[in-house]
């Protein structure tokens, strides 16, 4: 696959595509949608100290039709999963999913042998773009997640990555 040469279209809209990608990346409106503990940290990220609005991502829309990114913040119970699926399907393309916190990644601390109530991770039924670990993740982690998503959309990172250590 990778070695095949793909013929490029005669008319290219690289600049336009780039512009659209830039627009999308800088205007990621999340869905107001909290499930559990992580939702509080999501709120904290939007509030005074961390201010997600700096990146244009602070417009929390209550209606799925108007939002671009779904932040799955919390444990997904089996009763809730169909509703989440519906919400995701209601969002117009292009749309992204961020799994915030261990519960949305894998079920987190609520996985044990014989558990009967939860779905072990959002990626069981949603195409997740960014995973943010933590229980709950700090607001900085969510901001980093948004930056990662921007990088995924535009292909370039807003700020240089800070290496650990």
């Amino acid at each position, binding site marked *: 696959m990778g070695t095949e040469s793909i013929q490029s279209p005669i008319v290219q809209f690289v600049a336009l595509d780039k512009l659209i990608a830039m627009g999308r990346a800088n205007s990621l409106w999340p869905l107001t949608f909290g499930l559990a503990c992580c939702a509080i940290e999501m709120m904290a990220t939007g509030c005074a100290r961390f201010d997600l609005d700096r990146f244009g991502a602070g417009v929390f829309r209550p209606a799925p039709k108007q939002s671009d990114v779904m932040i799955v913040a919390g444990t997904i119970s089996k009763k809730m999963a169909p509703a989440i699926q519906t919400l995701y399907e209601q969002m117009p393309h292009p749309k992204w999913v961020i799994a915030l916190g261990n519960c949305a990644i894998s079920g987190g601390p609520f996985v044990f042998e*014989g*558990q*009967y109530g939860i779905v072990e991770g959002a990626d069981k039924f949603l195409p997740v773009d960014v995973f943010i670990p933590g229980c709950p993740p700090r607001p900085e982690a969510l901001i980093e997640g948004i930056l990662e998503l921007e990088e995924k959309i535009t292909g370039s990172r807003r700020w240089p990555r800070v290496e650990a250590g």
Partner: protein
Amino acid sequence: MLRDRIKTALAALSPLEITETDHAKKGYDLDVQVSPDQVPAAAEAIRQEEFFIEAVTGVDWFGEQAAIVAEAAKVKAAAAKKAAAAAAAAAEAGGEAVPPAPAPEAPAEEAELLPDVMEVVYDFSHYQENCRVVVRTRVPRDNPELPTISSIFQGANWHERETHDFFGIRFLGHPDLTPLLLPEDADFHPLLKDFKA
């Protein structure tokens, strides 16, 4: 004293057992055992004294009877062994021919296995005085049924529904026993000790 008042009020119902407990050790003051059909009457008496309902819950004593029987058998076997040993020791000491100790009876024969039970626990507390009353009742595990108190304490409605969710205990006369916390079509009772997902 509220505790004495409620005690006399409940004693009039002839419950199975009333125990005063140490609040510092147990966390409640009065432990009342009643039979299932006495529960509404007890709740009514408690309501008269202006208590409020804290919670209703269940406990599944699955295997308790078997454990009791096993325990009894163990004690019995130990006792028999001890007696046999004593007899042997006596025989050794006396040298006389002692009649052999009777063989221990088979445990299954002597203690018949009672059906397992589930316990329903009602917690009540009072807004003015520090007094907690626990009402317990036991229902058979294979047919767990007892009357509801949701017409006396409306708050019991959800607690009983939850208990039904978790244990399958049916509250007769309850307005709506559809699953509350579990999915609407759930037919399992996860807090039963023999529940397997």
